[in-house]
């Protein structure tokens, strides 16, 4: 359905994309995961025709995008990261305008607007000005604005930025509905939970390069550890991580958000030895738990940095 081949884009001396390639099949949901500045938005902008790559090409249903007025653009719906709404106009007026941009006739537009508002749960707020909406409602309307011309591919550039958990769930529900309808979704985010919940396949981008492209299970297989022991110490001060990492039971060790996270092969076999070592070195624990490794761990493993720190 969509193919991007060796995309390169520079802004002066800054290389934003350095040979990004990806393929997305029909009905597939692909997450573009990476820290801020990794090149996700640039990739989406090139696919949507907003930016011209320095080299490389984008094929939509096998055809390259040619010029501003190329009808192939009708196959794409863009949900920009920044809110793309006129606050002074009503939701209906906003959507009517967006429908007109795609030359949709009045009757079809009316039907499409009603369906889109219904999907995002704003059917009863159509006549209200957008400036009266909450952040979450605006995000949902932002999504609705990309659906009116019934695109086959939806480009979603961090569509949940700055929304409360309830609205985020509502947006996920909307996206899952669209997925069920067979839409192809390309979803950029730096929230690993979102990518894990929604995506069939995940492309990890860092410093303008694709560093991994696989299903969630496939990415997990790349990990050297399969379990994480999460230990809340009474006091982590003075803990010598380098010494801890030398233990045969320990695959990896780091302190993040005050919690000591230790990668182990087998929780049952490796945990007693680690707890004994901690007690002997004056670090009693308050709480003990375990975590499955997630995309954050994958990113950490691949880049040596955490998603949030990048």
């Amino acid at each position, binding site marked *: 359905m969509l193919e991007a081949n060796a995309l390169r884009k520079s*802004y002066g001396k800054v290389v*934003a994309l350095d040979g990004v390639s990806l393929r997305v099949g029909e009905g597939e949901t692909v997450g573009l995961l990476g820290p801020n500045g990794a090149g996700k*938005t*640039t990739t989406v*902008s090139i696919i*949507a*025709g*907003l*930016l*011209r790559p320095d080299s490389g090409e984008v094929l939509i249903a096998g055809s390259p995008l040619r010029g*501003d*007025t*190329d*009808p192939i*653009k*009708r196959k*794409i719906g*863009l949900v*920009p*990261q*920044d*809110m*793309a*709404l*006129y606050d*002074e*106009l009503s939701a209906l*007026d906003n959507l*009517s*305008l*967006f429908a*007109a*941009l*795609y*030359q949709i006739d009045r009757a079809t537009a009316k039907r499409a607007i009603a369906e889109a508002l219904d999907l995002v749960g704003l059917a009863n707020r159509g006549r209200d000005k957008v400036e009266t909406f909450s952040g979450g409602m605006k995000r949902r309307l*932002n999504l609705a*604005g*990309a659906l009116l011309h019934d695109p086959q591919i939806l480009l979603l550039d961090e569509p949940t930025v700055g929304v409360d958990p309830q609205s985020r769930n509502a947006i996920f529900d909307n996206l899952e509905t669209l997925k069920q309808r067979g839409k192809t979704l390309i979803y950029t985010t730096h929230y690993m939970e979102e990518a894990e919940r929604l995506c069939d396949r995940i492309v990890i981008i860092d410093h303008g390069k694709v560093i991994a492209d696989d299903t969630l299970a496939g990415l997990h297989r790349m990990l050297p550890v399969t379990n994480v022991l999460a230990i809340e110490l009474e006091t982590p001060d003075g803990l010598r991580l380098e010494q801890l990492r030398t233990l045969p039971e320990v695959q990896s060790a780091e302190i993040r958000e005050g919690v000591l996270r230790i990668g182990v092969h087998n929780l049952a076999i490796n945990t007693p030895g680690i707890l004994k070592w901690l007690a002997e070195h004056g670090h009693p624990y308050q709480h003990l738990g375990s975590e499955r490794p997630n995309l954050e761990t994958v990113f950490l493993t691949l880049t040596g940095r955490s998603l949030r720190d990048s």
Partner: protein
Amino acid sequence: MNTAFWALVRKDLRLFFSDRRAVVVGLLVPIICGSFFGYLFGGRKGETEVSRMLVLVIDQDQSDVSAAIVARLSADKNLAVKPSTLEAAQVAVRKGKATVAIAIPKGFGAAAGRALFYSGATKPELRVLYDPSHAMESGMVQGILSGAVMQSVSGEMFSGKGGREMVNQSLAEIDAAKDMPGADKKVMRDLLGSVQALNQQQDRAQTAGQPQPATGMSMPYETRAEAVTSGSGIQYNGYAHSFGGMGIQFILFMGLDVGIRLLLLRKSGLWQRLRAAPLSRSVLLGSRAVSAAMIAAFIMLVLFAFARLVFGVRIQGSLLGFLGICAAFSLMTAAFGLMVAALGKTVEATRGISIMVTLIMVMLGGAWVPAFIFPRWLQKATLVVPTRWAMDGLDAMTWRGLDVSAALPPIAVLLLFTAAFGMVAVTRFRWEADG
């Protein structure tokens, strides 16, 4: 194309009118400014009082001549004459409370009379103190003063008491003069004898109760000022110019706002949404230009409608020409806004520079003060500014009352500027969204 184009135009118009308070203020400010400047620059004929210039007179002579000079100055409709002392007058002029002060020194009347007949006599001095910021008014007062002095001195010399005494005294001096040639004595005796005979004739007539003709010198001409306008009975209306000027200024600011908003739009998700749609660049920029031009025309028409209803401003010339100039200026404003958006980098820097450019265009275009006040070289130099053509065109179609042919050059020039600005906008516009 049409659906998207007109949808974008409608959207811009809706956005403009959605903020009613901004619309009202946007119209109210030029109306207030236009009314104020129109009143200052003459308003409607008969509406504004002639502002008399304060002139202080220090009469140290206290003679019939000086009294006559003060009376003649006081009779002039342009002057408000008040007696003063030299010290008080100096303070008043220095503080700018009075424009001019005239000091008539002691003995001025007699000395001026002698100087009138004998070129070799010492001429008395009139001190004229003036505010250097009003040099032009000082020149006008000196002109009026010359006329008043000539009339007063000659009148006194030919028929006044002092003049008679001077004639009698001069005849005696001539008879007693030993070094004056005989021929000269005869000529002077004849001249002064004639004056004496005229005085005696007037005395007899006065005794008999007959009317006295004016004596002395007088101005040998009268002036009749006549404003040349589009027709008889049609008066100059200062509001026509001021409303045109303020309309041009605030419409340019609106155009500036269009450019700034476009700059801001380029940084927003909306720009990405618009660019993601299958729309040509001409639709995106053209729709903004058309909506801006429509708003500009609306502002101009509302301002002139107000001026028509409240101040009686009329399109004395061609209505078609007037509408043509409004349309051409509106298009030029829209293109100006697009050019600002194309050349601007940051909003803050663009706003500062473009406000300065706009104010210079407004100032040089004659929107604040009519261009005919400018020095000749500046009048020619400002023809490179589009606002000058717009102002001249609006003046021509309103109070000058010229026909449509006078509107064609301004329309053509404004359309040329529109094309030039539009060309810069299209070629320099950065279409890729700011990352």
